[in-house]
């Protein structure tokens, strides 16, 4: 009996030696300060949330990745913020207008705005995110066409606008229009299993957040840092692109960007991050 206990002990020690590869399942306890502004990376979850504490994906990343995000001079996503500023001020289209023609200085007019999307669009009778709001302005006010999904300029401009809300807590007003029913639908989708592997969003980001799936430390799957600079792709990744990637990884067909399904999911997933600071452009591996 003693003997077998000793063996079990040895097994646990061996498991402990593997720690750097696998365990250390807890997110770090560290403060994220960007340009002297402290981000809220942990906060009490809103009423009706499955977790007690809402946590930024930043807490789950490797030290080098975390440092890149914390330093605006190093953060490769800041190049896209600069590009976005150029597009903001660039006159384009038959009306001879730029974004700035109507909205002036984004640092003033767009401050905090990105923290409150998706919003209800009374004209379209559906939720609208920053990308769709940009398209709306292009079509209705500038005489231009909507951007193709994930067009480089769409990502840069979205990154720029969201960056004006850096540090602001995410907060949706679900009493707008029928936003609440889209939240309901998004919640249903969040718990629906898809694909040959039969996973729901909740299988990875709720039941197993904090665990490792291969090399990936599973976070709560929060939306507050999007668009995100992904080192692996060396490019900005939009939220709907990320959703589609996660759905594809269950070996399922994935919905179109800005489809009703993904808009509902965006409403619900964004709500799950209520109170976290907008971190755009966040950095992920």
């Amino acid at each position: 009996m003693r003997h077998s206990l000793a063996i079990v002990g040895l097994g646990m020690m061996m498991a402990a030696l593997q720690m750097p590869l696998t365990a250390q399942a807890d997110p770090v306890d560290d403060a994220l300060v960007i340009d002297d502004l402290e981000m809220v990376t942990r906060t009490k979850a809103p009423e009706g949330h499955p977790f007690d504490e809402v946590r930024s994906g930043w807490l789950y990343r490797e030290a080098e990745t975390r440092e890149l995000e914390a330093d605006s001079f190093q953060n490769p996503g800041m190049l896209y913020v600069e590009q976005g500023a150029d597009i903001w001020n660039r006159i384009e289209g038959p009306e001879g207008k730029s974004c700035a023609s109507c909205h002036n200085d984004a640092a003033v007019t767009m401050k905090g705005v990105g923290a409150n999307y998706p919003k209800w669009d009374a004209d379209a009778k559906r939720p609208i995110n920053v990308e769709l709001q940009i398209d709306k302005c292009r079509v209705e006010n500038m005489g231009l066409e909507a951007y193709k999904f994930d067009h480089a300029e769409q990502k840069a401009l979205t990154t720029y606008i969201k960056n004006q809300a850096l540090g602001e807590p995410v907060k949706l007003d679900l009493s707008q229009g029928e936003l609440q029913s889209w939240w309901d639908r998004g919640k249903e989708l969040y718990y629906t299993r898809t694909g040959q592997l039969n996973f729901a969003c909740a299988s990875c980001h709720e039941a197993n957040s904090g665990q490792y799936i291969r090399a990936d430390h599973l976070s709560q799957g929060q939306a507050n840092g999007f668009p995100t600079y992904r080192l692996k792709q060396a490019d900005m990744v939009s939220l709907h692109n990320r959703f589609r990637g996660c759905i594809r990884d269950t070996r399922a067909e994935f919905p179109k960007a800005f489809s009703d399904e993904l808009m509902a999911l965006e409403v619900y997933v964004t709500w799950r991050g209520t109170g976290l600071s907008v971190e755009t452009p966040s950095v992920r591996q």
Partner: protein
Amino acid sequence: MIKVTRFLCAAFVMHAGAAFADDTAPDKVMYEDFSVQASLTGKAGDPVEGAKVFKDRGLGNCLACHQNADMSGDLFHGTVGPAVDGVADRWEPAQLRAIVSDAKQVFGEETVMPGFYSLKVGKDVAKDKAGKTILSAQQVEDVVAYLATLKE
């Protein structure tokens, strides 16, 4: 005679995910007392092949969720499931066959472990995976044979 051939063809098509027509079809696997007694292929599994299935990201990718001291040379063991060290001391081969074929039959609907030889899958399955199982019957037998070697 023509009828017989047609029948055989139909049976073969139904086995799209499996390699051989005399494998037990996924929906014919008999789960009793959290076990599947009969081999899915009638042939013994090969533990060396099974170890490959366990690691390979395109096959079982079991290492994505399970730590395995026997594979300490490989990087990145997941922690979603329990470590499989000594798993053969805890489970009989017939139970391991049930766990790998359709973990939900053993652990309940809530488990996140995929059913590797089951067609009870999620919605909107990718077109190239529709009607197919993740592993073939022989690959399940190979993995079971490999797990049966994991004693402490």
